[in-house]
């Protein structure tokens, strides 16, 4: 009954309700769209970084992370066996990781070379997908001493496919080793910083030059099905390998983890600001609605409607108005977002390089999630209830005598 009356009361002044509904709708559309956009940006950046270089987790010898010492290794066979026995749902790529100089006939730069087993690496990282068809392939079997470099490195060293490069590094015994490779593929990720310093070679090709014992590796990249599994698996890996340094992606790149959290907090802050601003509009509208009904609210009191019910009626009117506007805004948001969820929003027309230098992709795939709906709806309901309190309290102060006197 009260809900029915509250609902009908909203439509007394269609223009006024329409204006505030429009304001709430537009505000929520913007909030919802920006949340989906930021979530997409967050998810896209994390998944691209996890796919290309972070993996969900990495394992190293404890000394390796401290100084990148070539001789800080662990044994692949034992680690692989432990993982297999544990039954953890993971894919693992065991890598050699060597820092050194990469030189062409024209130039030389410092890089980190990852020695990988091709099939293992393909199961863990998506770097092989970042090589366009016209720019070669990821360490093909038939190639002799192949190396995959990035487009940025190719530009700096002024090389192209099939060019010869010399990689010089210090082996486990402290001797300098120079190994010749030929460019077999040129990749490009959305992370400019990564592209500037990483090359890929076959593990077996470079192993002979490292001076390491058979089966030694520097790094294990671990990939799982999704972020949720990652949260569960990382602590288990840590328990399984107490002698190694096991790090989740957020520990390897805390800046990424922090900036992603910041973005999520940002999205919430933006929505809260939207709603805060809207609350004033809602309070104003409801206050007008209450004050112009002084006589009627007094009459309701006179005929026996309790103050509690009058309070509830005004609260419900506000909540209905807010919910209706928000649902309309969110529906418009979904309608605008759904078509670009697959294709993405391409921002490369403005400052592609800048985005990539900061490790962000320039194509954003907005993300809609149930959590987002629930979060925004909860915020809206809270804002609606808070905005309703003042007008509703005002209504309570009206005296039924006003009705009978007029």
């Amino acid at each position, binding site marked *: 009954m009260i809900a029915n009356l509250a609902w009908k009361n909203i439509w007394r002044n269609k223009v006024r309700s329409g204006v505030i509904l429009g304001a709430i709708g537009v505000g929520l559309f913007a909030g919802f769209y920006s949340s989906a956009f930021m979530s997409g940006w967050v998810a896209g950046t994390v998944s691209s970084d996890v796919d290309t270089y972070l993996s969900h987790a990495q394992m190293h010898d404890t000394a390796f992370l401290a100084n990148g010492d070539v001789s800080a290794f662990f044994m692949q066979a034992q680690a692989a066996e432990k993982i297999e026995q544990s039954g953890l749902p993971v894919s693992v790529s065991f890598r050699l990781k060597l820092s050194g100089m990469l030189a062409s006939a024209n130039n030389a730069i410092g890089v980190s070379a990852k020695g990988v087993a091709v099939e293992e690496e393909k199961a863990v990282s998506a770097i092989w997908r970042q090589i366009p068809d016209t720019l070669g392939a990821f360490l093909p079997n038939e190639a002799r001493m192949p190396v995959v470099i990035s487009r940025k490195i190719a530009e700096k060293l002024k090389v192209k496919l099939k060019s010869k490069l010399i990689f010089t590094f210090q082996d486990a015994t402290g001797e300098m080793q120079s190994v010749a490779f030929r460019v077999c593929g040129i990749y490009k990720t959305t992370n400019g910083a990564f592209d500037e310093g990483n090359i890929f070679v076959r593990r077996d090709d470079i192993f002979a030059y490292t001076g390491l014992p058979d089966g030694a590796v520097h790094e294990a990249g671990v990939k799982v099905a999704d972020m949720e599994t990652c949260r569960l698996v990382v602590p288990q890996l840590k328990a399984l390998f107490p002698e190694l340094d096991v790090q989740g992606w957020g520990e390897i790149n805390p800046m990424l983890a922090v900036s992603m959290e910041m973005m999520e907090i940002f999205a919430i802050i933006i929505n809260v600001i939207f709603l805060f601003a809207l609350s004033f509009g809602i309070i104003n509208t409801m206050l007008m609605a209450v004050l112009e009904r002084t006589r009627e609210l007094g009459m309701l009191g006179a005929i026996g409607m309790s103050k509690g019910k009058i309070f509830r009626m005004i609260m419900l009117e506000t909540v209905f108005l807010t919910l209706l506007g928000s649902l309309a805004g969110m529906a418009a948001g979904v309608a605008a977002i759904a078509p670009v969820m697959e294709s993405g929003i391409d921002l490369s027309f403005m400052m592609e390089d800048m985005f990539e230098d900061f490790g962000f992709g320039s194509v954003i795939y907005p993300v809609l999630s149930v959590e987002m709906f629930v979060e925004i709806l909860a915020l809206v309901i809270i804002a609606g209830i808070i905005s309703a309190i003042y007008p509703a309290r005002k209504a309570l102060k009206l005296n039924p005598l006003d009705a*009978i006197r007029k």
Partner: protein
Amino acid sequence: MNAIIEIKDLYKIYKDQAQEVRAVNSVTLSVGEGEFTAIVGPSGSGKTTLLNLIGGLDTPTSGSLSIAGKDISRLPGKQMTTFRLHHIGFIFQSYNLIPVLTAKENVAFVMELQGRKRDEIDRRATELLHAVGLGDRMDSRPAKLSGGQQQRVAVARALASKPQLVLADEPTANLDSKSAENLLDIMEQLNRQEGVTFIFSTHDPRIMAKAKRIVTLEDGTIVNNEQRMAE
């Protein structure tokens, strides 16, 4: 006849800076069940104040006031609201219907506040609207009804809660004479049928002509309390 209203030495005094206004001044009155009573008097004589006190919309400065055996002069607000809901019906000069509800919904509203059953509400709202001659306008909103029709809906609403007492403040003041006559006939008939006590504050000679008792107020004091014989 049992008394539905018992008023003893009732005062309502307003203090306006240095001045003291005795809107109701030592009123003692007893009204029996089923009476059709008019409170008359010049403007400012205290009619509306007395009616507000009887309706529990205002609290007396001193004295006692019982409705249906219950002293309401000191009832707290919440209990007073509940008491009004179950025992008193109101008819206002300017109808005061809820504009967003239909005639039937307006009549049903009070019963819904009382928490009655749906089918009972539906039946009584329909009966009452038929009784006030608006059986064909049940789904009309107040804005689509004439003043006389709106006031008839208000009468039906006042009776919907099955009150023992209906208080009407100048109910015919905004009506043309034909609508006023019609409304009075309906109220008189319902007074007989339902056995409800009606108290009017009025200037209208037509109401006075139909009233079984006329209480005349002057300066907040009863100067005449005239009981008429039933016709």
